[in-house]
């Protein structure tokens, strides 16, 4: 019987148990951040337990970081969470990229950047966007706090094997269309729960042609379609990306030989296959309060079909029949584990070069990691943003979620490169409109979204 990449990686990691029951799975990489780890460490301490494999654990601080002045954490609980992770990492001997550390950044950005994330691995983190790491041909998913404790103590996790779904993405990406539009388009068509119970794999000629950073954007948002895991099978693009990074294998040739066993035999191996043609895709924008409430930039917002739609329209202050260019944008956010990587910042900077953002717009640019920030500064990208009137910040999760000082004010419409447009996500009363970095850059300049297919965009 043919097997998927997922099946092959899974089988290789089973320690005990049979399919259908919870199985004990070995974890190759455990990523930690300050919000979901404190109770787990406390549990270890209470029971006199150690971290089994400190060499397979890596921690950073991201959610609570004040990106303006990182050493000045004003919120008492944020400070407590940050200090606690610092203490725990030291006490238990875990590698930590703490405040101001050269490797600090959003956990899902630094894992790949440091070469920690590799093909064929099982990667977990107490965070639902762990799906991002699947872009390397890995099984990667978010876990709860008790599970964080369990992985720390045992380097394993009990999981029931999900079904597999192949998402066949094909066609040439039109001008002005990005990986973000593909995943938003899939979720808009299929709904926010189509992937529930499945491990998704993206494949097809469009995916083959994508860079690692684009693949990460795609897998990052698999969770917004309900799939706990999204993945792409590893290829030369993947190997080239991993090679030479800080924690990459020293003998890449041997590693690549090993990684090459994790290929999906053929698409009959998937429990379900869906097909997505990108050749006519338009840029997407969300109008409502979940990522599935999205429309192509030139299409009207839908009629009210149910209570959820009504509530969403009430919350965002928009009406059916209006279009994305009608949304009065007063805030723009460039960043997050979806679109806070160097290529994303470059695309936005290319749009902003020689322009200024609209006077009513506040724009935050938050690199996904310190390394990205430094590279961007070497390239002079920071200067382009600053000249355009944007605020250039320290790395962190920032306004992706309202947990640190970077928040979108109540009632304000924000064009955002992040992944969730839930009520209050970017701050109490904030109105989030998800889109690609190029779309957000044009929205910042114009004070409203425009159809960027008609504009100059570097891809």
């Amino acid at each position: 019987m043919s097997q998927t990449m997922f099946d092959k990686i899974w089988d290789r990691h089973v320690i005990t148990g049979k399919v259908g029951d919870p199985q004990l799975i070995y974890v190759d990489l455990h990523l930690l951040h300050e919000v979901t780890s404190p109770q787990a460490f406390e549990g270890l301490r209470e029971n006199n337990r150690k971290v089994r494999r400190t060499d397979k654990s890596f921690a950073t601080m991201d959610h609570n970081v004040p990106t303006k002045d990182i050493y000045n954490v004003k919120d008492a609980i944020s400070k407590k969470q940050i200090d606690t992770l610092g203490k725990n990492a030291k006490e238990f001997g875990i590698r930590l990229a703490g405040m101001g550390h050269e490797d600090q950044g959003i956990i899902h950005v630094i894992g790949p950047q440091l070469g920690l994330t590799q093909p064929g691995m099982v990667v977990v983190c107490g965070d639902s966007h762990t799906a991002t790491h699947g872009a390397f041909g890995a099984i990667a998913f978010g876990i709860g706090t008790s599970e964080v404790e369990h992985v720390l103590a045992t380097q394993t996790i009990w999981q029931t094997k999900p079904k597999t779904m192949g998402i066949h993405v094909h066609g040439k990406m039109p001008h002005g269309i990005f990986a973000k539009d593909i995943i938003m388009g899939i979720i808009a068509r299929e709904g926010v729960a189509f992937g529930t119970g499945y491990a998704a794999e993206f494949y097809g000629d469009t995916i083959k042609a994508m860079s690692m950073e684009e693949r990460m954007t795609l897998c990052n948002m698999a969770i917004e379609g309900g799939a706990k895991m999204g993945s792409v099978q590893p290829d030369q693009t993947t190997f080239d990306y991993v090679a030479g990074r800080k924690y990459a294998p020293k003998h890449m040739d041997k590693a690549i030989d090993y990684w090459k066993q994790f290929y999906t035999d053929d698409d009959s191996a998937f429990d379900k296959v869906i097909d997505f043609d990108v050749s006519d895709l338009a840029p997407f924008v969300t109008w409502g309060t979940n990522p599935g409430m999205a429309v192509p930039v030139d299409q009207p917002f839908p009629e009210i079909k149910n209570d959820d739609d009504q509530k969403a329209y009430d919350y965002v202050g928009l009406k059916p029949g209006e279009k994305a260019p009608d949304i009065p944008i007063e805030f723009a956010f460039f960043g997050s584990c979806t679109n806070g990587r160097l290529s994303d910042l470059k695309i936005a900077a290319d749009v902003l070069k020689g322009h200024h953002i609209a006077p009513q717009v506040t724009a935050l640019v938050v690199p996904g990691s310190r390394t990205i920030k430094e590279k961007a500064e070497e390239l002079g990208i920071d200067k382009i943003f600053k000249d355009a009137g944007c605020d250039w910040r320290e790395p962190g999760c920032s306004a992706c979620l309202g947990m640190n000082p970077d928040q979108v004010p109540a009632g304000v419409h924000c064009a955002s490169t992040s992944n969730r447009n839930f009520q209050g996500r970017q701050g109490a009363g904030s109105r989030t409109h998800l889109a690609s970095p190029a779309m957000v850059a044009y929205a910042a300049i114009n004070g409203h979204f425009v159809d960027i297919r008609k504009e100059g965009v570097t891809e």
Partner: protein
Amino acid sequence: MKPITTITSTSVPLMKENIDTDQLIPKQFLKNILKVGYGKNLFYDWRYTAPNQPNPDFILNKPERQGANILVTGDNFGCGSSREHAVWALKDYGFQVVIAGGYSDIFYMNSTKNGLLAIILPEDQREFLAAAPSDAEITVDLPNQEVRYAGKAFHFDIDPLWKHKFVNGLDDIAITMQYEDQINAYEAAIPNFD
């Protein structure tokens, strides 16, 4: 985790259906770094009329109901958001056993992970227990799968796996470490490319 065999204690009846995790512990109390300390905010919206103003009419605040380890309640207990804090709050308050008509899946799984014994009994038996005076003791006998009170004994079902876990005070980690030899063998076979 502490083993649970037989618990004899007074009880608190709260015969409402569909008590969700927002009622058990509202979201403003989730931002913390500990698993303890949530007990004082258990049932917050019912328990306080204003911050630090206990509602004297709410049963948890009655002097004669203090120190009880058993909660007798309605159906579909612990529904709503998946927060593990709901179980932490019940335990931190001092409850060791909940007797309900049923539980949400996630709440039930969280209770097994945190050593809170969640028992299911039919309504008539729960009503009988709920009528127990404040000083009456109820006995929960896990090895024999019985709840005993006032000369009656009610049988309850429990998955043998969870029973084994509770009676032996094993947490998930302890159970997993029974497979330590296999984990060691697995680790020894991990290829190294350095």
